[in-house]
């Protein structure tokens, strides 16, 4: 009896979740096919790795954001955290702190920011929107104060080379570019696998959903709502700090005004990926697909010489269309 059910379980789960994920994959493939057909510059050894690098950072940001949105919260600060932590890591590296220690300290600061958000929400009773809006503006301010508005250039080549290099090349010295996986994209996988295990197969992942669905019922079922909220915001901020590291490595500078508006791209990616802003609905793969769909559209629009103002409008329209179809699908269920 139980054996057959064990085998049956993943099948049923797939029935519930994958179709929307599959539509997103299809959408992504259709986009790629169209761009390949209509441009000569899309499917090239320069553009594809570039696209993967571009999408990677928003993807990781969106994944972190999704944890928070599942608890029916919102984290508006992630873009600011990216900019702020890029300053932190640049400052540490220019003051001769070793790479690994710099990375650890930067991630630690992300953890601290997440704790601060959760503290404000749980202990001070502030709405998530407000506390993260506050850090959104003030973190950029702190970053600008630290450098007096200047940009810190990173001179550490090991650090900046990482984002330009590919996975097999940097691990084993095998040079098969352009067929190698860019390091930045490998980082998405590095984050996505634990995120999948966490969200779909761990107790704490379930607690995120429980708190997002009905925090009172969760509390009465023995779930520590406080710890769950802390966990969600810490994960989001640590993901953002991680993206701060990647961005600093990619552009070789630390500047608090970087990553302007990335919080909105992260939220949009998550929502396109099927996450509900009302909480308790979301997956690990949705935000990743959402981020790469957005990246592909922007990339394609560039290649097609579409006015960048139009790109913003297209992105907005796309959000409405995709989320509308997702709503239709849910209602039918």
């Amino acid at each position: 009896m139980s054996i057959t059910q064990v085998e049956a379980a993943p099948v049923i789960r797939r029935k519930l979740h994958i179709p929307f994920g599959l539509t997103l994959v299809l959408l992504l493939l259709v986009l790629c096919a169209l761009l390949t057909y209509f441009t000569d510059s899309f499917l090239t050894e320069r553009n594809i790795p570039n696209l993967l690098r571009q999408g990677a950072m928003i993807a990781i940001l969106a994944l972190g954001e999704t944890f928070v949105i599942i608890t029916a919260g919102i984290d508006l600060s992630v873009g600011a955290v990216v900019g702020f932590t890029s300053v932190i890591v640049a400052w540490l590296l220019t003051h001769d702190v070793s790479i690994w220690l710099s990375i650890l300290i930067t991630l630690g600061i992300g953890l601290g920011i997440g704790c601060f958000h959760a503290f404000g929400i749980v202990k001070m009773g502030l709405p998530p929107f407000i506390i993260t809006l506050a850090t959104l503006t003030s973190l950029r301010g702190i970053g600008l104060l630290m450098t007096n508005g200047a940009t810190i250039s990173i001179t550490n080549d090991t650090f900046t080379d990482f984002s330009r290099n590919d996975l097999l090349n940097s691990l084993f010295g095998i040079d098969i570019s352009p067929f190698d996986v860019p390091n930045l994209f490998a980082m998405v996988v590095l984050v996505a696998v634990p995120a999948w295990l966490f969200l779909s197969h761990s107790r704490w992942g379930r607690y995120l959903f429980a708190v997002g669905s009905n925090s009172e019922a969760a509390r009465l079922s023995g779930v520590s709502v406080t710890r769950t909220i802390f966990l969600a915001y810490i994960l989001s901020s640590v993901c953002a700090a991680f993206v701060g590291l990647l961005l600093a490595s990619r552009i070789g500078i630390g500047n608090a005004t970087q990553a302007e508006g990335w919080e909105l791209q992260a939220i949009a990616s998550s929502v396109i990926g099927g996450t509900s802003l009302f909480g308790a609905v979301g997956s690990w793969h949705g935000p990743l697909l959402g981020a790469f769909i957005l990246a592909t559209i922007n990339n394609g629009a560039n290649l097609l010489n579409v006015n960048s103002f139009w790109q913003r409008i297209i992105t907005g329209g796309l959000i409405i269309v995709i989320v509308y179809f997702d709503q239709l699908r849910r209602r039918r269920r």
Partner: protein
Amino acid sequence: MTTASPTLAAGVAADRVPILELRKLDKRFTGTHALKAVDLAFMPGEVHAIVGENGAGKSTLIKLLTGVHVRSSGDIMWQGQVAPIATPHDSIALGINAVHQEVVLCPALTVAANLFLGDEEVKYGFLQHRAMVRDAQKILDEIGFNLPAGAVLGTLTIGQQQLVATARAATRGTKFLIFDEPTAYLTRQEAAQLFALIRRLKARGVTIVYISHRLEEVFDLADRVSILRDGELVSTSRIEDTDEERLIRGMINRTIEQVFHKDEVPFGNTILETRHLTGRGFSDVSMSVRQGEIVGLYGLIGAGRSEFVLSLFGREPATGGEILWQDKPVKIRNERDALSLGIALAPESRRDQGLCLNMPVGFNINLPVLRRLTRGILIAGGPETSAAERQIGDLRIKTASRHALASSLSGGNQQKIVIGKWLNHGAKLFIFDEPTVGVDVGTKAEIYRLMGTLLQQGAGIILISSYLPEVYELADTLHVFRRGQLVASHGHKVASHEDVLSEAIGV
């Protein structure tokens, strides 16, 4: 109100022509046949009760009459003519209104604003707040509801909000008013105010459809009663021609004794004892629970019973006195302290406190025991599945699968989850706060059977209920609360109903 005159003017003839008639009314949803060719006539000025188990088709009937759903076949006749009710607007335009089980008003607005919602008093384009509060108060006083018109709705109790919803539905030129379990959250005084209003509406010629699981109310109010079972009309009879026994037999094939069935279980050791426990809303409560014992807590709403048990569960810790767990003094500071001792709570409001409604059934069942289902850092899929399936089977939860959302289940089946999720937990003391509110007779019997199973496993139960027959029949020890104090205690069925009631009221 304005409707009174035409109905009365119609005089004798109005008594002959039904105000509303269902002809072979039928409704199918994908997978279920919710209403099967129901023929039913409602006369002007009658109180017509409809009884039936959860899932019998009562809610579907209401939704067809109020235009929430559209019928599959058959006709709804309004004063002898076919009424194509397709939207809530159609139904309201005819003069059909409903008071739903859950309050659907705006908690952030005042009572007056809610009463006039969609029909505000406006002068020169500005809302006339003060005039509306004044007029609302006049209306409330007139219909005998003791409510402050200027108060913000959300600050009132659920019962009071329910009365506001009633007042709203009753004062909009309504000719046909449907009540769905109106007394579930009302205190006795509030219920009395409601009954008085129903009688006055009836005297004015308004037709009342009264849906309730509380049969004593049906006998108190109704002129006629119809029984629904599995979407079919079983019978319609004048209230004088029937009795509780017959109604219950019509709804299910079970008698009252079988509903309150209780096995004798020998008492074991004391599980929990309180000594002079004091907290917000109650003081100086000393009581104990033994293995195999049901301790009933009876009292009016606001008597401190819920506050008392919430302190036992750590929701709002006690400020004075002592709690002994298996004869050792303990401090219960939060829910997790309580759970780790082995205290489980099935809370009063399943929607607000008991369930994650937009999550699957299996998710809800396993939520309290995820820690135990975790191997290493991950949840073991096999045990998780089998735990959920076993619970769905044991409790006979009617659901498409464990992946169905909890919100898709009927109220009774939702309640089974609220209780059932603790069965795997292995708690030693169970607190049931109003476990059968809005639940049909069949599910009630199953919930009582479940309690019996827990007792036989050596657990103890604290049962809170505002439904006297329930605590009276089931409790081995019955404590009566009044104004935050434990005022009387009785053995199993020792005192009379009247005694217990007067102790609770304090006369």
